């Protein structure tokens, strides 16, 4: 057994030192009826490395890997080119196999990058401070709603119809039990883009509103100015929570902080992390300094050591479960440490110059694809303003179109029906994301596939 170093002789010698006759003697506290006499029947025995690799590689090959196909899916997880050095560095054993930095004297590596990560996220979002990460964007949003409740002592939160439906569902799950009230919007084809006017939300803010939650760009790709909404919320004593699921957009689009956000949550997988079939991803959480003591999650801060040298430690832990137990701001413990490292490395490679360039490249490509697709007869662009993702109305059901394109080897987007099942109105809406990874051939393939499907469906109808 390649991972187990004890030899039979070792085990004998150790049992002797312990004074036990056999290993069973160490399990005496287990009730007799619960003791298994041997390996659980029906489960496979151990396998050589080569065979495990062969079997899992076989499963991997049964999936259509994004990099091997024209790929246009976004909807909360974006495919970007991650420089090879990122993955190399996060595999350094001292990063990969370390724990949460509870012993700061031998965890300065982790602590310093967390401090850098926090600063990068704060700057990107336009806020004062950011925490050391959450699980993902969706759980970060729920935590933000709770934080707003604690800060405002109010019980109702208004969610825009443009918020990622999975995020909304996750918040609803918890709020059902905590008693937090959520007012959610429903996307509709009456709007253009298919999300409510922000003015409608403004109308709904009242004295029990703890916060308004808006996603920017929203789930259809639409980019909006949130400045007035922020002012309206603040005027009623409510907070503005902004959700960002495509962090690359912040290289080009005004930051939530600049628009007046009080809390910014987001999904950071675009930088360094990759698609990962949805996890592990990286929850971002930023706010202003004055609210920091109500923040969930870990925080890394600067200090000095006994010799006066700068160093970093986890701090303000009196907010956390291990100190405050049932009075903690959150129950989170393990977060997304290694993913925040990947993010920090990628962001360091980019720098401001690279990030802006990357964002522009995404935008330019998306504009090109939007125009190409909108030129197909019967296809209509629903989002006049967007960053790297946009919504189209097709003349056919989008869900089937996505499946048909996949059959043709093209991963051509996400149907609104997959995200908001049951909304008949959105049945023909396709959401298409375009990043720098999309090549000219990929674009041609998408246009060809969609044209063909539309043609086929027409003739079939």
């Amino acid at each position, binding site marked *: 057994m390649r991972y187990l170093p004890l030899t039979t002789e070792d085990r004998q010698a150790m049992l002797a030192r312990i004074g036990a006759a056999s290993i069973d003697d160490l399990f005496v506290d287990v009730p007799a009826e619960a003791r298994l006499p041997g390996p659980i029947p029906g489960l496979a025995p151990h396998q050589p490395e080569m065979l495990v690799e062969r079997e899992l590689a076989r499963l991997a090959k049964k999936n259509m890997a994004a990099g091997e196909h024209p790929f246009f899916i976004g909807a909360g997880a974006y495919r970007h080119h991650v420089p090879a050095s990122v993955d190399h560095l996060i595999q*350094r054993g001292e990063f990969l196999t370390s724990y949460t930095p509870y012993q700061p004297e031998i965890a300065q590596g982790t602590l310093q990058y967390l401090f850098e990560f926090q600063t990068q996220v704060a700057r990107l979002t336009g806020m004062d401070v950011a925490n050391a990460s959450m699980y993902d964007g969706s759980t970060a949003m729920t935590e933000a709603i709770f934080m707003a409740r604690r800060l405002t002592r109010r019980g109702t939160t208004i969610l825009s119809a443009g918020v990622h439906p999975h995020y909304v569902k996750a918040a609803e*799950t918890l709020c059902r039990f905590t008693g937090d009230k959520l007012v959610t919007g429903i996307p509709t084809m009456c709007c253009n883009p298919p999300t409510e006017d922000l003015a409608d939300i403004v109308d709904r803010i009242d004295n029990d509103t703890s916060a308004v939650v808006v996603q920017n760009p929203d789930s259809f790709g639409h980019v909006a100015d949130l400045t007035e909404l922020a002012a309206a919320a603040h005027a009623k004593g409510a907070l503005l929570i902004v959700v960002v699921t495509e962090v690359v957009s912040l290289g080009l689009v005004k930051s939530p902080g600049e628009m007046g956000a009080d809390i910014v949550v987001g999904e950071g997988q675009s930088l360094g992390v990759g698609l990962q*079939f949805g996890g592990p991803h990286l929850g971002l959480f930023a706010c202003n300094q004055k609210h920091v003591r109500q923040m969930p999650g870990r925080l890394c801060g600067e200090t000095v050591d006994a010799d006066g040298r700068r160093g970093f430690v986890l701090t303000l832990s009196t907010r956390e479960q291990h100190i405050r137990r049932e009075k903690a701001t959150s129950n989170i413990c393990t977060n997304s440490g290694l993913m925040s490292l990947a993010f920090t490395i990628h962001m360091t490679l980019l*720098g401001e110059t690279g990030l802006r360039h990357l964002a522009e490249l995404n935008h330019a490509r998306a504009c090109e694809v939007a125009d190409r697709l909108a030129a197909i007869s019967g296809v209509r662009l629903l989002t006049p303003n967007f960053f790297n993702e946009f919504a189209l109305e097709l003349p056919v059901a989008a869900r089937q179109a996505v499946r048909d394109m996949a059959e043709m080897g093209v991963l051509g987007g996400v149907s609104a029906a997959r995200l908001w099942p049951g909304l008949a109105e959105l049945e023909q809406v396709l959401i298409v994301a375009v990043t720098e990874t999309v090549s000219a051939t990929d674009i041609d393939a998408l246009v060809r596939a969609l044209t063909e499907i539309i043609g086929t469906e027409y003739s079939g109808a």
Partner: protein
Amino acid sequence: MSMMNQGRPSSPAAAGPAAPMTYTGNKGLMLEEPLIFESGSVHETGVDLEAVPPHASRLAGLERTAPIGLPGLSEGETVRHFTRLSRQNYGIDLGIFPLGSCTMKHNPRLNEKLARLPGFADIHPLQPQDSVQGALELIHRLAGWLKALTNMPAVAMTPKAGAHGELCGMLAIRAAHEARGDARKVVLVPESAHGTNPATAAFCGYTVEDIPADPRGRVDTDALLARLGAGGGQCDVAAVMITNPNTCGLFEPDLKRIADAVHAAGAYVYCDGANFNAIVGRVRPGDLGVDAMHINLHKTFSTPHGGGGPGSGPVVFSAALAPFAPLPFVVEENGKFHLVEEETATAEHHELSFGRLAAFHGQMGMFVRALAYIMSHGADGLRQVAEDAVLNANYILRSLEDAMSAPFAHTGPCMHEALFDDAFLKDSGLSTLDIAKAMIDEGFHPMTMYFPLVVHGAMLIEPTETEGKQRLDQFIGAMRSLAEAAKAGETDRFLTAPHFAPRSRLDETRAARQPVLAWLPSLPPRLAAE
């Protein structure tokens, strides 16, 4: 596991020499490294990108204009920055990492390789399900192993870590009670529980009540049973959250009895499975009456901790709770795999599900690693894992109990971790923290300090099964020598430890009093004013 929250405050002792002997501040291979905000520049970059084609902006004038303040570095300098930082860290790859309750075992490199196969790492959670059959099959297979290893009929794969799994389990319990119109509000949590247990119960709206420990380090069964019966006819206890093996490293021998009583009272047993490593393959929690238990893949099944995450905390459920398990999950039908999501839940007879916990389908990257780990060990190997983990812990316990003080050693063998307290430091002027810092000098990561709370100055040592006898013997030798030095009054050496780490003790008080949480060239007035 838990950070120190009592004992000597970790503010610096007498200052040592402040000026470095070298011009650079480096000391041979121990290298100092500035922040990227000090060494990088917003004009530098470590990437090359294609030129931006001409295009008319669709951003409606929302373009960012002000500088962001994100420094870049060339690729070479980036590699150097993070390599130099990494060298200021300790990891399992460097040596024994006996952090109790954390199961810091070897992280196999095969698993890292497999998790990076494009067929797993480079697929999108919203791809058409026909295009991700291999991924769904993998989740399904791992789910099968977890159910079989626990003898539980259902498992929720989506929770993102242990605490998230606790949330998942407690939500199922709430949903189950609500489904029968029973709005119980109390959750019983033993004193020795991990902080996430009470935090989770509170997070989803429960009132938490403590259950004391008995003198043998186990849950006080009598107190627990009494509390269950206390409400008279209608019991107000929704659930008991129990950890088994518990955070003292001991098996709860009464768990089955407790579970029966809990069930009789119409409540549920949540088991914190963080310590599953001690019993995997030898004991199935389902056989002990557990209704829900999270399994930390990043502990028992060796997915790397990565300096604080990511984790993955699937939750197994009893038949009673299975209907309430969250969405989405994977189902097999005639060799094809599909996801049960909101849309299909009712059709699939899962209308009682409490809903979605997070976006997408769970920590796929961790699933790949965990399944590879499980297949590599097999049913025989996993059993051996538990045996060796327990053997190693008992070896440490028996090799150190005379030199240190082990409060529950007299009760019999421990499970996967050995608990010591600070009684042996009485009158030495030293604390658990001082011992921990001296261990750093010896080249070890310290054990868990000051947790669990049920003993004074706890030192919780979990070696895991991947430590060999030679490493353990060296560790034991070093611990004995430290204990002897402490008892012999070599106080100074401890109080100023660590001496050889990249930093001496850090001033945590200062960090908390004047929090500096982001780099600022100089504090802007707004922040400084607060």
